[in-house]
């Protein structure tokens, strides 16, 4: 959920209480993940890639074929500083199924997820919905209202996705900062409610 500095600290301000929260942005290819992260983040989305180090790029041998020995995984990555010592980190998860392994790492300790959906191809977000439901990671559906797409209500989408009751569906424009912020706010609110509900569950 969060990372916190708990040991002795240096001179850094607020180092004692620095808190980092992780939010995932998932959804099918072309649904607007990169756009959303870019719209709300104070830094340009950066890509973290797994690739061969320059130093390791010595020629591989076997007949001049430039064998690609690295999987390059580009992630959208943005940071929103709430205040000194409290930041929200956004990770746009790679869409392809073959990157599930990355999702596992990213979802560990995540506060929650935004699943972007496009009503013209709603099925693209099924895997993400399944994924977060199974792991009981709080998520909201953010319907990216592309111009020209037939407008569906939140209810229609909720039914079509067979969402658990209470899972928020928000209509948004991924390009719009305020709209993106609203999506994140709904997620944080929902994550808080889920957390409280679970606490009550465990208590009795």
């Amino acid at each position, binding site marked *: *959920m*969060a*990372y*916190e*500095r*708990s*040991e002795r*600290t*240096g*001179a*850094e301000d607020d*180092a004692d209480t*620095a*808190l*980092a*929260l*992780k939010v995932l942005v998932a959804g099918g290819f072309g649904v607007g993940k990169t756009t959303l992260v870019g719209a709300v983040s104070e830094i340009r989305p*950066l*890509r*973290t*890639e*797994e*690739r*061969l*180090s320059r*130093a*390791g790029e*010595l020629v*591989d*041998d076997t007949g001049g074929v430039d064998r690609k*020995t*690295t*999987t390059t*995984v580009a992630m959208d*990555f943005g*940071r*929103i500083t*709430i205040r000194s010592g*409290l*930041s*929200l*980190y956004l*990770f746009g998860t790679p869409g392809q199924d*073959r*990157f*599930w*392994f990355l999702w596992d*790492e*990213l979802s*560990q*300790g995540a506060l929650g997820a935004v699943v972007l959906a496009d009503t013209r191809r709603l099925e693209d977000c099924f895997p993400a919905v399944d994924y977060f439901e199974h792991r009981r990671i709080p998520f909201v559906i953010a319907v990216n209202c592309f111009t020209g797409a037939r407008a569906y209500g939140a209810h229609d989408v909720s039914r079509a996705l067979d969402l658990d009751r209470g899972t928020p569906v928000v209509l948004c424009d991924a390009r719009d*900062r305020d709209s993106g*912020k609203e999506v994140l*706010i709904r997620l*944080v*609110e929902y*994550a*808080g409610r889920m*957390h*409280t509900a679970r606490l009550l569950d465990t208590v009795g």
Partner: protein
Amino acid sequence: MNEHSAGGDPSVPGGRWYDSDAGPLVRPYAMTGGRTKPGPGNVRFDLIALVVVDDDPPGPAEESLLGPEHRSLLALCRAETQSVAELAADADLPVGVVRVLLGDLLESGFVRVSRPVPPARLPDERILREVIDGLRAL
């Protein structure tokens, strides 16, 4: 897959790090001496683990022995407390490499890396409230 990175340790098996479906990931890196696993206790730093310079670091003599990548990471940490993901992006290094290098820096006492808060200590309501208000005010 062959490992032949310069200075690589041939005894370190495999460059495979993630599952096989993801394809071969990274051969052991030259700059990490062929290691693909982070250092002490096999800690694998989370992408949002925060890295801070130690307030009682080794002296300049020891620092001068660090490699250029170690040093550039250290410089980034000094400038600002940053997450592992940011360091990787800013240093223009793969996350896997950064994890190994940070492990070295942690082990030798140059930096400290934040630890996960156990799930039972999820940010309390007050913090979440603060996040919501902060988002509104952006």
